[in-house]
Structure formats: structure tokens, C-alpha cells
């Protein structure tokens, strides 16, 4: 999974997709996740980083992570070639 080329992410949480013309607001944790994904980290790495930093259990993170991934994919912020990606 990677962030689509046409997507620009600013540090205040504003995301613009020039391919679709859509813009979005992401909250701080959403922004952090998006950046980590953009840097190419895998699920386990991101999970460990989050668990260390936040008052959070692993199952909650997992649920929220995949929900967020599904959303940014839906908004064409990421592109997936392989449906088994991130399993």
C-alpha cells in the first residue's frame, strides 16, 4: 500500500487529492498514521509505535487502524495493487 502520487498532506492535517479534487481534514492521530504509512512502515511497526506512545490496547488499535485504512483507501488517498496487502 502506498500514498497516491497526487496526494499532498500538510502538517496541520489538511489533505488534498489533486486527482479527485477532494480535500480532507485528518485528526492528529490520523495524520500520524498517514505519515507512517507514507514512510512505508508495516502494520506491526506502526502498532508498536502507537502502543508505546499512547494509552491504548492492541485490539483497539487494530480495529481503528484497519477502519482508517479502509477509509483512506476509499477516498483514493492510498492505492492497493495487492488485495492481500497488509494482512
Amino acid at each position, binding site marked *: 500500500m502506498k500514498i497516491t502520487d497526487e496526494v499532498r498532506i500538510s502538517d496541520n492535517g489538511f489533505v488534498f487529492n489533486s486527482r479527485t479534487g477532494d480535500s480532507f481534514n485528518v485528526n492528529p492521530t490520523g495524520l500520524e498514521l498517514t505519515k507512517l504509512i507514507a514512510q512505508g512502515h508495516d502494520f506491526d511497526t506502526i502498532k508498536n509505535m502507537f502502543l508505546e506512545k499512547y*494509552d491504548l490496547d492492541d485490539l483497539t488499535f487494530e480495529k481503528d487502524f484497519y477502519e482508517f485504512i479502509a477509509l483512506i483507501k476509499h477516498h483514493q488517498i492510498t492505492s492497493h495493487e495487492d488485495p492481500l496487502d497488509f494482512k
Partner: protein
Amino acid sequence: MEKLKYDKPSISKINAGMPSKFGLPVKQKIISEIDGIKVSTLMEEYGSPLFVISEKTIRETHAEAKRAFETRYPKVQFAWSYKTNYLDAVCSIYHEEGSWAEVVSGFEFEKALSNGVHGSQILFNGPDKSKADLRMAIEHNACIHIDHFDELYLLIETSREMKMKARVAIRVNMDAGIYPIWDRFGFNYENGDAWNAINRIMLAESLELIGLHTHIGTYIMVQSAYAIAASKLANLYMAIHRKFDYWLKYIDLGGGFASKNTLKGAYMPGNETCPSFDDYAEAISNALISSEIPHENLPILFLETGRALIDDAGYLLTTVIANKRLNNGRRSMVIDAGVNLLFTSFWYNLGVYPTRELEHAEESTIYGPLCMNIDVIRDAIVFPQVKTGEQLVIERVGAYNITQSMQFITYRPNVILIDNDGKTQIIRKKESLETFKNSEINPKRN
């Protein structure tokens, strides 16, 4: 190291300058208590899902309807439409408020009798009255509203055999500007069938014609339709007087007033668009009072109002079972109350509300718990983010849901009443395996 507070990651699309169809988003409504009792307390004691009926709302709504009509018309009598909600506890409140009973089957007739309604105060409607039903109705001196000619002849035969007189009215269907016309019930006004039926009844020695009935449809959003209906019945009323020198006792305009629910596909919420009791009362009273009928011979006005009287008094409390993102990114959730309990979810966009302030509203779909694709309570509702176990309230479900609810897949829940003193009690028990064992027979095999 102290860990930071975690917020669920979220992303929301910016729709600049694009207000929703109801204008800018308003503050999310919440329902945390009913008649002063916390929703969480009710669910803790009686389980989830849970139907809750408010006696206070029933009585207040009834009083409002009564006032609207009685201040405009000299003689008004409500008859509680049993099929709308025939829990004994509910019917008894209406009877205490002075309502007669409007029934459409032998079963409902028996229920009304067992609730202590005098037979002469039962209006017996509907196309399905067996000979046994008609006997029961004649014995109890009920007002039998004849639906079709076959019933008329069966009634003549039955009353002759019993050597008793049956008190009857006819149901009339007509063009009142409401389409499609419900012409499957009763005798048509415009084509002369109603007048023919009246003439036949006036010739039958064992029948006494006492009224005229119509029910032009349900959720009628224009009060002028009732004015048309009232005028047409007034014409028949006068025609009977002219030909037979005889005054009927009543004109019954049936039910059909819209409740404040919002119909599917409606552009505006029902509570802003539907006529009030005052509007309906004004239209009907004016039509009758300004008709040809002399003031001293005005008939009693019967009303069989159902949904508009009880919808607001009923709530369904429910719990979130799961959250789910659909393939298209849409947020959805599964709650523990399905369409088998909420028949009216097929007509209305039912109001579903959280019990406390929640954030991150977005368009969502609310599914029931049945393992069936049709089990959708709301297909598009702007709803905040909820966790599993979150308690929600569905409002305005007092009409038709409890009577039409189906047992399916799981037990039907408790129904409780919050009485005028704020006390709660079960008025119909949750089903159990016993409920089914009691009526099923499993034949022994060798």
C-alpha cells in the same frame, strides 16, 4: 514514561459550501431519559431491546386531540383503533379517557369486551367478519360497519335467524383527492353503490342503519381531504333523511391523521409538515357545520384516530452490537433491534438518537441484528461514532410496531409502561422458549 491520551484516527471530507438538504447541520439531538427515567436504568432493569410506552404522552396527546375537536364541534366520540396498538394496558388508558373501541376482527372484538368495553360502544370494521363474528356483534349490540354486499346479505340472514336487530353503518369509499383511492373497502360513493347499499339496508327489517363510515387512507397530509369526505357523507346523510324521513346517529371519518414521523422520501421532517389536530378538526368541523344538515340534527362525529394518537408515546431502546465499514467506505452499525420489531421502518425514516453527547458524525447505515439483507433500520442517517454497547433510542414507534411485530430468529422483547406516577412495569413479557413450547406440538415418531 507517561503515555499520551489516544484519539481514534479519523478523516473527514471537506464539503465546502455544501449544506445538507436540511440546511446547515444542527446540534445532535439526544434522548437520555423518558418521562424523567434514565434510559440506562430502564435497560438495566428490563433488558435490550425494550419497548417503552409513556402513559403521560398517551393522555396528553389524547387530550390535545379531544380539545381540538370538542372546541369546534358539538358531539365528538373517539374510538380507539385496536390494530394500532392493542396491548390491554394501552387500550385501557384510551377507554379511561372515554374512547370507545374500533375493531377489525373477532379477536379484536373479544379483546375489547375483555377490556370492559360495552358491546354497544364497539365499532366493528373490516372486510373479514365470519358468521360467528356477526353473531357475537349482534348479541352485544355493536355497531357493525358493513364492508361489502356479501357481508350485508350474511348479516340479514344471521340477524333473521337470531330474531334480533343488528345496528349497522356502511363503510363508504370515495374520491377525496387522495390517490390511490382505497376502493377495496366499503361501497363507492361516486358510482352509486353506497346509495344502493343504504336503500337495501333500509328495506331490511332486521337491520337498523345508524351511521355512515369512511376511512380515506392513512398518513393523510392534507386536511382538505377530510373536508371533502365529510361533505360527501353529509350528502348521504341528508339524502337518507329526505327519502326515509330518518336521521342517522353518526358520521365516522375513520383514522388517517399523520403522525409526526417522517415518511421515506419526504423532503422535510414530518413534525414540520404534517397538519395538527387543530388543522384536521377545523377542516372537518367546518365541512359538517356548513353542510345542509340542520344544526339540531348534526350527527355525532366519530373518529378512529390511530397512529397520530400513539406514535409519540412509544420508544424502542436498543444497543449497538457492532460497527462496520462497508466496502464503499460508509460507516455502518448493527443494533439489537430489527425490522421484525419495527414494521414502520418500511414507511418511515425513524428517528434514532444517542443517549449522550457523541462526536464525529457522518452518514451511516443502521442495520438490525437479523441475518437477513432486508434488515435495515436506516439506510442513511448522519450519526455520531458509537462504541459497541452504546445505548440508543428510537422514537415515535407507538403505532403498528408492537401489533405487527413478528417473532423471528429471536425472542420479542419486554414492553413496559411508564405510568403517570413515573413507575415502570412490564405490560407484555419477553418471549421465552416456553412461549413456543406452549403452542407447538411435536408428533411422536416410532
